[in-house]
């Protein structure tokens, strides 16, 4: 009965089986090494289990329109801002973590078949075949666990540090465990410094984790478990010495490491190259002053030679790491070059980490320009494959790109470097999300500043937004480049990009964009102009974006209210939007709205170029939008701009279609008489004229202000009809 249910549940699984392959095997093949007779098949070419998959995946390149494959390929689910990228990926991982928690916490549900008949109940059972250890529940150790040495072996081999300490204590500490196991445990403790290492299982967390800069601090736990275990080991093997010295040196307990090394050498215990590599890395902790440190480094190297230890590439990068950490200066640079030459003579080529340290040493931001990067690239481009060897290797590309951008300011070099990163599967050397974004920040900046415009757009099209979302500073750089190149269409698009990237609330950026749009508006084609106007309208409306049933939400109720645009920015919008001849164009509404904003001082500051507003008034009059024109002139007059008088006269002249002299004569009359004879909008202009002329408006300034605004409001609507 039960098994029936199970079967029917699993039925879809069986039905989705596809008959993937039908092999037609020949008879038993003759075991000749060659197909000399032309009949028997030649011997099989050896391949690893994943070789075919890798060959097939190498045929697939990058698609610039698609997001990373960890995201869903759907317009609603493709993340376009850095925040969304991070939160989507981490949410997915949080789900995986929750599943893993349930699996570990309730391991019984996954390893037994509770639905079996009572006699067989709780028989261990794994539905996965072959069993995949990574998917199997992980054992949980607590004070009640019954543990054996097998458990200790398991925890050590899987680098479960806290669990292994627990098991170690449960097993009875140092006395009951054999020496081999103790040595393994000591090595684990020394490597991790009694701190649970970051799990490698959670890729996204590691990728997005806040950049924990490696600090050179003495973190070694003196008198900890590692020291105790080392003390209990008898006799002390060379491996034990090496492990402890390596642990101390790795966690910058330099003096004790040195002392232990001397002790080992005196006792005649052989040490490994790695021990000296680690010691070379913390020379700076031992001695003060460049000269003493250099001497100490040389002494250590000669000690290695005495002990017949062959240096390897890690020795080189450890030396350079020390040297680059001591500061800069001609002497150190010379010394570093000496070291590199010395190692070249030994047949050891510097790796990526060594190059990283060299770049740090030579290319200081304020120092003289040193072009060692081109040599490095020449060398690296010759290599067939870049093999990561040290964690520091991932710093190379970001630093090198930084050098291209800040130090060399050379786009050619940046292009070469980027090509190197994209070659083969070198991309894994980019590090984590933080490093990747800095890398691209440098690349895009250098492309904007120093590359020809076509190259820049090409780079932007391939990278933004799926690979890299520009930060506000980079966005500004991009806008600057677009402005210089006069790419109006792209500037219009840039606004929607600002919205999508979640930086549309940065007023500085928006103002920069509006400036750029204004400055290159004139030489665009009509279609592009229309696009730019739409973008400008959208910028002004953005703060009052309607949500739900069309009711505008007050800006104050938003969690982060849209900051005020400056008056300059609003003026820019007005300038762009007023460039329409059509009376019924929707742009006029926006213009009117913008003017209201200015008048209600919803924009910060005053416009620096009031002539623009005068132009707006004229254009509005020309298009027959008298209310808009009146509002513009009124604003000028209220703020006491000198242009107000000239603008009001011009506007009136255009409105009433009379020569200027007539208008000036008319304006000398009493305002009260004009009230009856003039169009309300024209009268508003007259009032503005008086205000500008006398400095004081009519007695009921506020009231008239309100009335004119309402009048002009009705006026606009009538104009629209």
């Amino acid at each position, binding site marked *: 009965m039960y098994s029936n249910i199970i079967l029917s549940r699993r039925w879809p699984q069986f039905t989705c089986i596809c008959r*993937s392959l039908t092999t037609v095997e020949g008879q038993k093949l003759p075991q000749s090494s060659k197909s000399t007779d*032309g009949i028997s098949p*030649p011997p099989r070419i050896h391949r690893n289990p994943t*070789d075919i998959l890798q060959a097939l995946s190498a*045929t697939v390149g990058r*698609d610039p329109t698609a997001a990373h494959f960890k995201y869903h*390929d759907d317009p609603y689910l*493709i993340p376009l801002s850095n925040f969304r990228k991070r939160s989507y990926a981490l949410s997915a991982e949080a789900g995986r973590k929750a599943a893993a928690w349930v699996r570990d916490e309730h391991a019984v549900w996954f390893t037994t078949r509770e639905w079996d008949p009572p006699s067989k109940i709780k028989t261990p059972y794994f539905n996965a075949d*072959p069993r995949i250890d990574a998917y199997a529940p992980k054992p949980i150790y607590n004070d009640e666990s019954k543990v054996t040495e097998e458990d200790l072996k398991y925890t050590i081999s899987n680098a479960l540090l806290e669990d292994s300490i627990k098991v170690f204590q449960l097993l009875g500490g140092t006395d009951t465990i054999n020496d081999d196991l103790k040595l393994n445990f000591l090595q684990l403790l020394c490597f991790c410094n009694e701190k649970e290492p970051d799990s490698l299982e959670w890729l996204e967390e590691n990728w997005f984790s806040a950049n924990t800069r490696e600090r050179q601090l003495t973190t070694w736990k003196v008198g900890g478990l590692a020291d105790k275990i080392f003390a209990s080991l008898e006799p002390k093997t060379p491996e034990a010495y090496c492990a402890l010295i390596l642990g101390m040196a790795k966690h910058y307990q330099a003096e004790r490491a040195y002392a232990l090394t001397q002790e080992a050498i005196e006792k005649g215990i052989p040490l490994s190259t790695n021990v000296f590599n680690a010691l070379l890395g913390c020379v700076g902790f031992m001695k003060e002053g460049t000269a003493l440190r250099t001497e100490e480094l040389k002494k250590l190297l000669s000690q290695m030679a005495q002990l017949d230890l062959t240096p390897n590439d890690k020795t080189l990068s450890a030396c350079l790491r020390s040297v680059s950490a001591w500061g800069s200066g001609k002497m150190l640079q010379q010394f570093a070059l000496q070291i590199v030459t010395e190692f070249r003579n030994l047949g050891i080529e510097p790796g990526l980490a060594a190059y990283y340290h060299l770049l740090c040493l030579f290319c200081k931001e304020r120092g003289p320009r040193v072009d060692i990067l081109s040599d490095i690239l020449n060398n690296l481009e010759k290599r067939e494959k870049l093999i990561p060897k040290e964690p520091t290797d991932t710093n190379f590309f970001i630093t090198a790109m930084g050098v291209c951008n800040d130090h060399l300011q050379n786009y050619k070099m940046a292009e070469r470097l980027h090509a190197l990163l994209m070659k083969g599967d070198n991309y894994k050397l980019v590090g984590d999300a933080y490093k990747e974004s800095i890398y691209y920040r440098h690349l895009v900046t250098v492309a904007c500043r120093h590359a020809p415009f076509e190259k820049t757009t090409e780079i932007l099209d391939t990278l933004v937004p799926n690979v890299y979302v520009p930060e506000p500073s980079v966005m500004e750089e991009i806008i600057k480049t677009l402005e210089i190149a006069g790419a109006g269409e792209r500037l219009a698009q840039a606004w929607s990009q600002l919205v999508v990237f979640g930086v549309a609330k940065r007023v500085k950026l928006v103002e920069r964009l509006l400036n750029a749009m204004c400055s290159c508006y004139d030489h665009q084609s009509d279609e592009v102009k229309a696009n730019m106007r739409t973008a400008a309208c959208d910028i002004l409306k953005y703060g009052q974006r309607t949500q739900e049933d069309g009711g505008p939400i007050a800006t104050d109720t938003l969690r982060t209210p849209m900051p005020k645009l400056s008056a300059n920015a609003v003026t820019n919008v007005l300038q762009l939007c007023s460039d329409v001849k059509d009376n019924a164009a929707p742009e006029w509404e926006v213009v009117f709205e913008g003017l209201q904003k200015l008048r209600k001082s919803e924009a910060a500051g005053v416009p620096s170029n009031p002539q623009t507003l005068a132009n707006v008034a004229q254009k509005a009059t020309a298009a027959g939008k008298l209310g808009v024109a009146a509002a513009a002139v009124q604003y000028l007059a209220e703020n006491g701009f000198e242009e107000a008088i000239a603008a009001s006269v011009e506007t009136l002249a255009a409105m009433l279609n009379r020569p200027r002299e007539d208008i000036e004569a008319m304006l000398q009359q009493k305002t009260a008489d004009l009230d009856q004879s003039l169009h309300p909008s024209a009268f508003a202009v007259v009032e503005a004229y008086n205000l500008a002329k006398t400095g004081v408006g009519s007695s009921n300034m506020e009231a008239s202000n309100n009335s004119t605004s309402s009048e002009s409001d009705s006026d606009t609507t009538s104009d629209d009809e």
Partner: protein
Amino acid sequence: MNVILQYYRSLGTARTLNLRIWRLNSTSADVATTTKGDEEEEFRVLDILKSRQRTKKKVTRRNDVQPDRADRMSIDQKWGNVWPGPKTFHPSSVPLPLRQGYVPKGHVPPGKKANAELMKIPNFLHLTPPVVKAQCEALKQFCTEWPSLLNSEEAIENHYPVETITSDYCHAGPTIRNPLARIATLRVKLSTLNLNKHAQDKFIRLVGERYDEETDLVTITADRCPLRQQNLDYVNYLLTACYHESWNVEDWEHDKTEEDMEYYDWDKNASKKSLVQWHLRATNMPNDLSDMDYVEYDISKIPNGEEYKNAVSSLMNNGESEETLKNYGAAVRKLLGLPEAKI
């Protein structure tokens, strides 16, 4: 009543429930009096279809949704990068103006967005010719040269007469095992086996329906063992055993008489004897033949004898039918020198 109860439970709060039910059960006059008192509570009509309640759902629109990425694709892109593996159709990443589905009169077929018909059918967008070509190029490094002498189907059949067929299965599930993968099939052409007439006859009897006369193929399938290799071994064993058994001649096989024959052998039958006798009489030759001589008599000496033999054999082996009878009649007329039958 039940319906009303459920309806109200879903609608009203528990507090008003009692009152409402009572009101529904009461007469209309009662209702009028009660509703007059409190105006804010108007009489609620039982709306079974809930046509009134269908309010417009609020649609919240995100303003940062990008347009389909299909719109941004360049015309010279590599399609293999966009659609690298098999997956369900997705409208926003396929830059094709596809339409599919039921067409109401006067309409066009539904477009690609939210189109279940397009999602249901398997697509081969991941296997466009350039992709297939690129993948073949990538796999060439694992391929060895084809043996030069195996250049035709006949040559392959000649050198590798035995075929074994097994199937591999690909799952999405915790286990990669499939019970169907254990089944092994072996195929061999009977003519390629080294058998004489007796052995072949015995072999065919042994394998029974596993032999297909039309294609001359013997197909042996085994699925009784749990593993594929065991089944392969088993089919090989079956073939070997049948082959050697068919060469054995048991003592009792000599006792086989004409009645035991599984088919009509004209040479051993009375028909031939009569024909030979008739022929000898007709040509005035002495008749001193023994039984063995009759069997081995060369029929080609008799004009039209071969045809008669075939006609009789087919009549006896294939049974009486219009065809065989007609053939027989024609053969007899020819043999006897009679004119052909007029229809």
